[in-house]
């Protein structure tokens, strides 16, 4: 194993239950356990899985003026975010490119909790520190906060079996403070799978104990980053580094409506560029003919010319076919019923546009 890789406190626990470990975002992480990616994927859609997400980063920003300062530092409004609400947001550069996509939790009038991608912790922290006034204290909790994702339709039953009151559990994209296993936890109803689920944050000194106790709950099985990726791809959720980077804007990634660029005169870092530069590309869902996956960087050909590039793709276990996300050049004139040619390893297949999410039966936020 590469000695420079970081280990979560669970590396030995993963090894003990037969995980296959791989490098991911600088960390040594479980890609799958004994049952394998397909079984873990299906189990998450139908029951409940536990994911070790300790590699991700957490910050708190607190102090007088923090809401106004974050409002100017981030692409989505923070000032109008209510206490108890989580909001998907973006840290942009002056060109409107995405430094990171993150989730901001409003704790109270003057405190926010911010969850960031593992590979971007140092970059985000330095950038936010520059953008926030000295009156705002920014703390990096990434090494002291553990994060587990408990995802799947049975996740509520697991938490209630542990003594939490179902009615008190947070609503979709909300968070609350709870006592679980005698520990203080911040629990949000968020996730990266498309299923009903929660993200649990707590003191990292209890990581092993909480992992064991949750896995001991009837019906809870571990799932690795392999299933996390197939689950998020079926939902069309972007992965930083694949669908977004500093040369891609959130408008290009399909989140323009969240920014309300036309409906307000809000300014934030990157807003001038977003308002003056039209998108160069658009992120779209692609369904491929057959089961073979198209991987990052594969060209999308239309009438013999390249009109886009696949950003990530996989066999979609819940759909039984291969799906991908791809950027289509904004300048290309592509009808909605276009048939693309995609060159795979030793094969050429056809592909078509498809609405996102690919998986439409997710339980994360069921529409009544």
């Amino acid at each position: 194993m590469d000695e420079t890789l970081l280990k979560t406190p669970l590396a030995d626990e993963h090894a003990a239950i037969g995980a296959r470990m791989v490098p991911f975002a600088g960390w040594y992480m479980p890609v799958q356990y004994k049952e394998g990616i397909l079984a873990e994927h299906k189990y998450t859609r139908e029951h409940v899985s536990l994911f070790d997400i300790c590699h991700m980063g957490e910050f708190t920003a607190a102090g007088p003026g923090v809401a106004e300062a974050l409002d100017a530092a981030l692409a989505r409004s923070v000032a109008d975010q209510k206490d108890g609400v989580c909001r998907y947001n973006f840290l942009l550069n002056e060109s409107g490119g995405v430094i990171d996509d993150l989730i901001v939790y409003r704790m109270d009038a003057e405190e926010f909790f911010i969850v960031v991608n593992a590979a971007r912790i140092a970059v985000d922290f330095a950038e936010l520190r520059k953008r926030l006034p000295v009156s705002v204290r920014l703390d990096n909790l990434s090494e002291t906060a553990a994060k587990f994702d408990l995802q799947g339709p049975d996740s509520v039953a697991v938490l209630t079996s542990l003594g939490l009151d179902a009615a008190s559990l947070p609503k979709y994209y909300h968070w609350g403070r709870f006592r679980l296993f005698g520990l203080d936890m911040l629990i949000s109803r968020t996730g990266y799978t498309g299923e009903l689920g929660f993200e649990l944050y707590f003191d990292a000194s209890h990581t092993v104990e909480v992992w064991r106790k949750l896995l001991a709950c009837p019906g809870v099985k571990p799932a690795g980053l392999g299933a996390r990726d197939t689950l998020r791809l079926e939902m069309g959720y972007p992965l930083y580094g694949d669908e977004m980077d500093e040369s891609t804007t959130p408008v290009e990634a399909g989140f323009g409506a969240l920014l309300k660029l036309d409906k307000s005169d809000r300014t934030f870092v990157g807003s001038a560029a977003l308002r003056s530069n039209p998108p160069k590309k658009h992120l779209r869902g692609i369904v491929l003919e057959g089961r073979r996956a198209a991987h990052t960087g594969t060209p999308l050909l239309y009438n013999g010319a390249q009109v886009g590039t696949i950003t990530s793709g996989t066999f979609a276990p819940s759909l039984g076919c291969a799906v991908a996300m791809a950027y289509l050049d904004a300048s290309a004139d592509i009808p909605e019923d276009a048939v693309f040619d995609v060159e795979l390893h030793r094969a050429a297949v056809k592909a078509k546009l498809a609405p996102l999410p690919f998986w439409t039966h997710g339980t994360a936020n069921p529409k009544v």
Partner: protein
Amino acid sequence: MAKYYAESHEWIELDGDTAALGISQYAADALGDITYVEIPAPGKTVAAGDILCTVESVKAVSDVYAPVAGTVGEGNSGLEADPGALNVDPENTWICKLEGVKQDSLDGLMDADAYAKFIETL
């Protein structure tokens, strides 16, 4: 019937001059959940070491090489709809047959014991 393995982790099981061909348990485990198996077209002539077909899992794409020269015969079309069968019992699930296999082409291959020792070195 004699079973032989290649260093590239295919096996062949010879019946006369026809060999059933598959991938080893080691290869199937290394690939993880197999999601696609290309069934090579019958009639194609291959030399030892040629790419015969491609097998794909959720996280990997891998070529299957012909351990010996021959002509592609019948394919296991059941794997098109159920590629996962290759994970369940890889040592007894053939992908295709190779016909016209010559006995003297088996020299570079390993028997089950030699292959077991070989994968211990990996």
